[in-house]
C-alpha cells in the first residue's frame, strides 16, 4: 500500500477578470525562467506545490480558471471543494479593481461559505502605470474582512508568501473546526449524565 506523503491537502483557486495575471501567477512567464514553447502553447491546468507550515506537510493544488471568466461561466463546479481563493486584480487597471466586488458576490453565491479568501493587487512592478493605490486595496479588503497583498508574478514578488499565508489561514480555520468538533462530541457525550431523568410530562 502506498504511504501517505502529506498531512493536509488544500484546493486553491485563482479568480479575477481576464488579463489581471492569474495565469502568470500559476505559470511564471519571465525572462530568467526556462519556458518551452510546447508547455506554454498548451497551458497549465493546475499545479501541486508542497509547503510546510507548523510542522505539517501541506499539499496545495492550485487551479487557474482557464479563461472561463471571460464568458462569466464560473459556476459551482469550478468552486467545488475549494478551500481558498486568490481574488486577483491589476493595479494598473481600474475596472479589474471595481470588479472585485462582483467576484466577491459570485464567490458568495457559488463557493463554500467558509472558503478562505485573499485579495491580490497584481502587477505591482508596474509602478508607473499604477491607477489603484495600495490604500484602496487595503480598504476594500478590510471592509470585507479579507487578507490583502500586492504581488508581481513577473518580478516574483510576494507570490510564494501569498500562497503560504492563504494556506496558513485555512490551517487556522481547520484547526478551529477540529477543536469545535471535539468540543461538540464531548458535549454530546456528557449530555445524558446531565439530563434530568426522563419523565412523562403529559400522560
Amino acid at each position, binding site marked *: 500500500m*502506498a504511504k501517505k*506523503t*502529506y498531512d493536509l*491537502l488544500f484546493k486553491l483557486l485563482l479568480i479575477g477578470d481576464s488579463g489581471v495575471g492569474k495565469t502568470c501567477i500559476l*505559470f*511564471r*512567464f519571465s525572462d530568467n*525562467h*526556462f*519556458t*518551452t*514553447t*510546447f*508547455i*506554454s502553447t*498548451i*497551458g*497549465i*491546468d*493546475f*499545479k*501541486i*506545490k*508542497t509547503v510546510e507550515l507548523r510542522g505539517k506537510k501541506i*499539499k496545495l*493544488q492550485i487551479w487557474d480558471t*482557464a479563461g472561463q471568466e471571460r464568458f462569466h461561466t464560473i459556476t459551482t463546479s469550478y468552486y467545488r471543494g475549494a478551500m481558498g481563493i486568490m481574488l486577483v486584480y491589476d493595479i494598473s487597471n481600474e475596472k479589474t479593481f471595481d470588479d472585485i466586488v462582483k467576484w466577491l458576490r459570485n464567490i458568495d453565491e457559488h463557493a463554500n461559505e467558509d472558503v478562505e479568501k485573499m485579495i491580490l493587487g497584481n502587477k505591482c512592478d508596474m509602478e508607473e502605470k499604477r491607477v489603484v493605490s495600495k490604500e484602496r486595496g487595503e480598504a476594500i479588503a478590510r471592509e470585507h474582512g479579507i487578507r490583502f497583498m500586492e504581488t508581481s508574478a513577473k518580478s516574483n514578488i510576494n507570490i510564494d508568501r501569498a500562497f503560504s499565508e492563504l494556506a496558513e489561514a485555512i490551517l487556522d480555520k481547520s484547526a478551529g473546526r477540529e477543536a469545535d468538533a471535539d468540543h461538540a462530541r464531548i458535549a454530546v457525550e456528557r449530555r445524558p449524565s446531565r439530563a434530568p431523568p426522563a419523565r412523562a410530562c403529559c400522560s
Partner: protein
Amino acid sequence: MSEAEITTNTGDSPNDLVENGLNKLVVKCKYCGSKILDKKLGKYILQEKELPLMQQDTRKEGEIQNEKVNQFYHVENMFTFDNIGFTHTVDCYKYLSCADCDAGPVGYYDMNSKHSYVALSRIEHA
C-alpha cells in the same frame, strides 16, 4: 502521443538510480532544481512512449517534434509529488512540467488510469 507496448520488466534497471524498483534519489528539475518527487516514491518501469521535446524547433510551425522515451518513474497518486504542474488535456493525457520554472514535458499523466509517469531522461537525480 503514440501508444507502444508496455513492459514492466525492471530486470536491467540502473543500479545507481534504482533500488528495490524505486527511485533511490530525489527527483529534481534539470533547469531550476525544484524538488519534484521525494526518494522511493516512484516505481521504475520500462515502456516505450513518445514525448514532445522540451525544446521545440520553432521554425517548424504547427509540427510537434517527439522523441522516444523508455525509462519512467510511475506515480499512482498525483499528490505524491512535491511540486509539479499539469497542462490542459491533449488526447487523454496531461503533460507534466516543473512547478517552478515550467520546463517540460518531464512526463505525462494518463486521464484514464489517473497515474503519472516521469521520464528519467527529463529530470535530474540528486
